[in-house]
């Protein structure tokens, strides 16, 4: 299978012109969308369906700078990409102590009931983690250019790839804890599907 970058005729790099990508997505959709193959035979319709599904998934993976990094890791490692398929996030070691404290706070709040003070504390923790969740994304995207330079220069990209993976795992872990906090507060909205566009 061709990778998602080649679907749009793009090099396997992280800097992508959003306008160009969108235009190519629209152009390809006009060619392959099932709406325009209604008169085709069964095989032709199945082909349009498969092509269109590929284009849609490729666009979804590449349109956002962060999902682009996730997808890149998958192809670099030769895995078939599936959204959200990154291994269940384990707590990064340097965060263990801190996260244990958050979990304790949750347990405590549960045991003593969510009084005003306990709830406020959990909300404060959540706010702090949400900021770090955003900061992780920014830090990851900020090094996209560095990756592209390494590609151009033929440099060793292993270390950066590993760094990307770790930061993504950290970010995913923040998300899990944020959700745990929301659950404990009884303020969880439908959110188990991660919103990669944020």
């Amino acid at each position, binding site marked *: 299978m061709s990778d998602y970058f080649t679907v749009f005729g793009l090099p396997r790099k992280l800097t992508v012109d959003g306008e160009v990508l969108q235009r190519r997505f*629209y152009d390809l959709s006009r060619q392959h969308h099932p*709406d325009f193959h*209604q*008169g085709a035979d069964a095989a032709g319709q199945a082909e349009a369906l498969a092509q269109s599904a590929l284009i849609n998934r490729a666009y979804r993976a590449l349109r956002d700078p962060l999902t682009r990094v996730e997808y890149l890791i998958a192809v670099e490692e030769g895995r078939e990409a*599936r959204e959200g398929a990154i291994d269940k996030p384990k707590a990064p070691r340097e965060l263990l102590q801190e996260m244990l404290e958050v979990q304790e706070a949750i347990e405590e709040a549960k045991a003593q009931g969510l009084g005003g003070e306990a709830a406020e504390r959990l909300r404060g923790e959540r706010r702090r983690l949400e900021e770090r969740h955003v900061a992780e994304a920014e830090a990851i995207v900020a090094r996209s250019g560095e990756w592209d330079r390494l590609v151009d220069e033929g440099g060793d990209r292993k270390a950066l790839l590993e760094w990307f993976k770790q930061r993504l795992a950290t970010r995913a872990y923040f998300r899990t804890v944020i959700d745990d906090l929301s659950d404990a507060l009884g303020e969880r909205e439908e959110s188990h599907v991660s919103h990669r*566009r944020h």
Partner: protein
Amino acid sequence: MSRIVGIDLGTTNSLVAHVEGGIPRVIPDAEGRALLPSIVAWTPNGVVVGEAARRQLARNAARTVYSVKRLMGRGYEDVKDELPRLPFHVTPQAEVVSIRIGDRDITPPEVSAHVLRALKQRAEAHFGESVTQAVITVPAYFNDAQRQATKDAGRIAGLEVLRIVNEPTAAALAYGLQKLAEGIIAVYDLGGGTFDISILRVKDGVFEVLATNGNTHLGGDDFDQAMVDWLLADIKTRHRVDLSTDPEALQEIRLGAEAAKCRLSFDERTVLTIPFERFTYHRDIGRAELEALVEPLVATTLGPCRRALADAALRPDQADQVVLVGGSTRMPLVRRRVEELFGRPAHSRINPDEVVALGAAVQAQILAGGITDMLLLDVTPLSLGIETLGGIVSVLIPRNTTIPTLAKEYFTTSVDGQATVDLHVLQGERELAKDNRSLARFDLAGVDPMPAGMPKIEVTFLIDANGILQAQARELRTGKAASIEVKPTYGLTESQVEQMVEDSFTHAEADVNARLLIETQTEADTVINHVARALRQAGDIAAEDERARIEAALAALRAARVGTDRDEIRERTIALNQATAPLADRMMEAALKAAVTSKRADRLLENS
């Protein structure tokens, strides 16, 4: 390719439309009416649909089915709370609820098929040729089972459903065709029974849905119900009767409430009058009272709006346009709340009752190859996942993914020699399988006997452009296609649909006859009423023998009307019309003369 029509199969009303000379138009019935009430009644003479069925609501309450869209693709658990309010009997089956009419159990797709068939016939009468292909709209937030049920209804009605289109998206297409949409468009669609919000980016003829959300169980019906409960309490206080268990009275109250609600969209106050057997109920209602009743319901639409915006990664003020769709958006309160949320005026430049059908016609024209510069990219409203160990859902396709889309997943066996693998497929946003909507159970069969963990079965989950799941499986080591037996949790099996298609042919002729009879009877009633009134008001300008002739013809029609001989009724109607023609001419003449001498001509003409 033959003509493809666009159909809006609504909770309260349905419409059929097509594109003619590049312009989408609603196809009216013989009387010029665009809306067909989505009501089906089983009468002693057969099945009737639309206006004729609406008249059966109060007098034939147990056999007159309305708002069946709310039951489409639903199981007993989903709807049990509202069943006590329905005047017809719903059979409590877990998988597919059905409605008991006499000794038959009729499923919601079969009821909807009657509505679709009426629209099909309307289109056929309009074109003078048969119509066999259609695009049908559904609420964007409809799940797989509800979409499939709609497709089944089309098939039972003898229509090949080429595409299921989401209602708010269809509305955007109608606006887009008229170049009324560009940029970020929020479509707020509150109909009779369902609510959708869709956020689209419209650019260069591409209609890209960014996110959608909604509630398939919220609409004008619920507003009516809130009013009914309130009126029942008021009647109890003022007249000391409890009408909550009287199905016919309930229907009268519901119809009265609905009409009053509509009037209050334009007037500040209205008077509701319902004549019952022992007393007549009068109630003066102000708009503020209605708004207090429905405010909590309207408020529940705002959460989905915020979630859709969040999924589209947009703030409310980034919408360039807010479009209102669906009859319930005529309520000033709804408009106010939407405008507050988005911080800009909302509009409904195209008739909110018709815009969805017009958009369906546009999509039909795209499929027919008649429009090539517009492209619709829609999304799946709900996440699709499979149940894993411990009852946790693993998401394969997240909500708001552009469709068509596919996901592959790999499975293996846990016991040596295991020949089948079971999968549980779900839709929804919750973490635990039990909290989501069960879609189907897949039995992957024909796995070659191998030690546990050896087989590698690849299952491809594909959501097509209709938002409906298709699945394929193959064992990668042998390359053999594994067979999938799909057991839909809610919905009809293939063979059940086949049977219903067959049955519909058997009943079709009887149904047509019943409809024609009722139409003829209705026409006779109209003529009888007109003539009786004319004789009362203008009998003095009729000569005595003329008057006797008219009265004889009137008596003859009245006698025929009681029976079921359609030809007889029709002949007597024509005879009565002929007998009164000279009198009608003279009345018109008198009215015109009066117009010269009196300012009251308008009233005379109106009464003649």
